[in-house]
């Protein structure tokens, strides 16, 4: 038993990481589906989309051969509507609300339909938006993830010059670094980013981390407003003995390496345990299998009824041959030669509901042990509490306190996305960025123009303090 890479043939990797939601092959197939749409009024699908995409309208536009119009309808609500069509848990959002469900009929394939015009728009580089002439006003955005990009796009359309500071080497945030590769490829993320930036007026400074390479105080001086969209950090600690053993890894780091290093070079164990049952846990477990792990076991302290992932996600894990250990809480990790070899779990049972409204698990006193050579932690991510604290922002356990429209406790500083909500869907981050942009525009208009502090040249990082 060992953690090794290069387990499979190139063909096997390709097969295992193929697009799980393939696009419609033909226009005819698209039209059959588009014409099923009832064109609901005050449509439940739209109301269930965090970005409020006018779904009946964009589908009607597909059906009537107005693909540009359709793409515009999607992007005006959600500039990452293409990526969201691949990663959204639509079964609990738009498609879950489709009225066909109430007729015991298959819901409209909204995500696949949404992919059609957005793919066309990106492939053909349709310029669907034009930027107003620069107003000279400048906004700094921290983080080139969905919230930051969404905010930047709205601001730039309104003539604001936006500089995004990104600590990684690529934009896209968790879309680029944190989602299963069979849902959205790194190449697609790069195309999506380029499409967003093609509007103009948005500059990304890569390799710049807030609190390290640049300071909030200085940004406040240099920009008319600052939007914080730096997301959340690594996985929550298990806080159990043996957590430091070799082979115990963080789910996001694992997914990050799958998405950046190429599939064959990513090491994976023979017997892998994944702790957690959220979307990230599923993405880690299924990809561990797809990289060639012989056994993958998902360990979760509650039951299927309380799990955070969707039924559909669980189904993917099941079809991939992952096993589930429900009502099991990790208690200790043991190892040999510094490497993890066993995971001991407490068997749990459900007690009365806790603060989340879900029945709380409690130990039964029994335990069991799994032989493992790799443990992936995916029990939620930790906010950047220290960073937030040091910046003087009001927060709750590291999650920035923010009103609906991104206003923080500091004037001119706005925040949205995972750094505020603690980690939700991409589509939630996009909406947060969009709403914050509106608030930022209002704020800027209420402020006198700021005298420029020092020369500002986007080609030179202006954080050199």
């Amino acid at each position, binding site marked *: 038993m060992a953690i090794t890479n290069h387990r499979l043939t190139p063909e096997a990797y390709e097969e295992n990481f193929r697009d799980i939601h393939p696009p419609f092959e033909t226009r005819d197939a698209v*039209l*059959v589906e*588009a*014409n099923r749409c*009832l*064109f*609901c*009024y*005050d*449509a*439940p*699908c739209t*109301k*269930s989309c965090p970005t409020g995409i006018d779904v009946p309208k964009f589908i009607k536009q597909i*059906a009537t051969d107005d693909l540009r119009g359709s793409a515009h309808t999607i992007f005006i609500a959600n500039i990452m509507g293409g990526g969201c069509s691949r990663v959204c848990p639509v079964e609990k959002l738009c498609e879950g*609300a489709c*009225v*066909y469900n*109430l*007729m015991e009929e298959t819901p409209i394939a909204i995500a696949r339909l949404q992919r059609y015009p957005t793919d066309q728009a990106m492939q053909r580089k349709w310029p669907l938006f034009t930027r107003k002439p620069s107003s000279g006003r400048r906004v700094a955005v921290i983080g080139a993830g969905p919230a930051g990009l969404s905010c930047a796009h709205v601001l730039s359309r309104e003539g604001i010059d936006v500089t995004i500071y990104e600590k990684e080497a690529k934009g896209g945030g968790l879309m680029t670094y944190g989602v299963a590769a069979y849902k959205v490829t790194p190449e697609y993320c790069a195309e999506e980013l380029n499409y967003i930036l093609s509007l103009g007026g948005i500059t990304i400074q890569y390799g710049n981390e807030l609190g390290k390479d640049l300071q909030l105080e200085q940004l406040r001086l240099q920009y008319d407003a600052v939007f914080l969209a730096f997301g959340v950090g690594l996985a929550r600690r298990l806080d159990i003995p043996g957590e430091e053993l070799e082979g115990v890894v963080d789910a996001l780091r694992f997914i990050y390496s799958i998405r950046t290093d190429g599939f064959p070079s990513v090491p994976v164990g023979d017997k892998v345990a994944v702790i957690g049952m959220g979307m990230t846990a599923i993405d880690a477990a299924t990809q561990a299998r797809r990289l060639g792990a012989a056994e993958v076991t998902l360990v979760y302290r509650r039951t299927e009824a309380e799990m955070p992932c969707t039924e559909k996600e669980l189904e993917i894990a099941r079809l991939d041959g992952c096993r589930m250990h429900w009502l099991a809480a990790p208690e200790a990790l043991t190892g040999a030669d510094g490497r993890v070899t066993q995971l001991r779990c407490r068997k749990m049972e459900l007690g009365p509901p806790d603060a989340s409204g879900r029945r709380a698990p409690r130990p039964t006193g029994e335990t069991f042990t799994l032989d493992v050579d790799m443990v992936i932690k995916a029990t939620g991510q930790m906010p950047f509490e220290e960073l937030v604290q040091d910046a003087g922002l009001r927060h709750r356990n590291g999650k920035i306190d923010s009103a609906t429209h991104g206003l923080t406790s500091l004037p001119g500083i706005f925040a949205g996305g995972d750094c505020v909500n603690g980690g939700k869907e991409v589509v939630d981050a996009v909406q947060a960025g969009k709403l914050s942009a509106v608030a930022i525009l209002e704020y800027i208009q209420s402020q006198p123009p700021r005298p420029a502090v020092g020369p500002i040249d986007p080609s030179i990082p202006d954080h050199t303090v």
Partner: protein
Amino acid sequence: MASLYTNYLGISSPNPFWLASAPPTDKLINVIRAFEAGWGGVVWKTLGSQVKNVSSRYSAVDYHGSRVMGLNNIELISDRPLDLNLKEIKECIRLFPDRAMVVSLMADNDRDSWHDLIHKVEDTGAHGIELNFGCPHGMTERGMGAAVGQDPSIARIVTEWVMETATIPVITKLTPNVHSVVPTGRAAVEAGSQGLSLINTIQSVTGVDLDTFIPNPNVGGKSTFGGYCGPAVKPIALKMLTTIAQDPVTAKAPVSGIGGITTWKDAAEFMLLGATTVQICTAVMKHGFRIIEGLCEGLSNWMDEKGFQQTTDFIGRSVPTLTNWEDLDLNFHVVARIDPDKCIHCGLCYIACEDASHQSISIDPGNPYNTYAIKEEECVGCNLCKLVCPVDSCITMVEQRKGPDYLNWKEFQQRGLPLNDH
């Protein structure tokens, strides 16, 4: 089990389903296969004047993903040699003596041409003749087809020429490209035509190509008005059929109904409004001869369900129920009712009523599902919500009479009753 056997002007056929004069009936090989499939009769594609056809010939209207809701054609009458057609007709009659063989004719506009053509057709043993006074394209430019049918005086003269010599039943096919089919229908019947068939196709332009800007069908960069048929024209045909059944002169002539008949249900509706036989073309052009099975079985099963032994038990039965508007009962009142258990919260009833009717549906916002209910005191009973609802019998119209007695508009005015105040 109900009998579909049909006797139309003495022409018998095992069922009332005939193929209309059109491409499916233009040659032996087709007609044999149609008869093998079970069709009751055919009206052979129009013989007569010498023509040559163009390419392309058809165009269609699609609706909401469904193809050929309406079909348009610019094909003329048969462009095959007359002698070949006559030979094949004779052969068909020999092979299928129990099926109806009617031949559509459109001779040049003179007595001799008509007489000559009729003699040749009668020599084949055909059971009847259909006069094509309806073709709306091409032939009209030569004073034929609809050019005859649109002028009752010309139609009368031509029918008289025909009746001078014809010894087999004559059916006159009427064009819908008139404000009323009755005047030409009367002229034909008064001139001796035993039967009437309707409708022929409706002049149309089905659309314009948004890339080339040329209407379709495109014939080398130009188009021409064509004849429209298919499911889209059925309501127009039913209305015209009814006017023929209601007129005291034309009502004497048995009718062969034509116009968008696709299913057994359509056929039953045509027959309820007076058709003895029905003629079908577009549905076959889309799906082939095989549809005859569903047509016969469906009609027969429905007749069994309703207790009809033969088609004459219900032909024309619905005609008396179509009256003048001023005879309708103003005290009859229905209101919509939404079954909350069946409602899927699509909101289509609400927005239709709100924007286009009487603002009679209330909305109780929910996330994601709104709840909709009828404001009965506002509802005028227009049916719109029921029509747009995608769920069968989710919305029903419930009778709530305004008064016990029958009250029509004439009576309403005589009594000086009050009009709406909103």
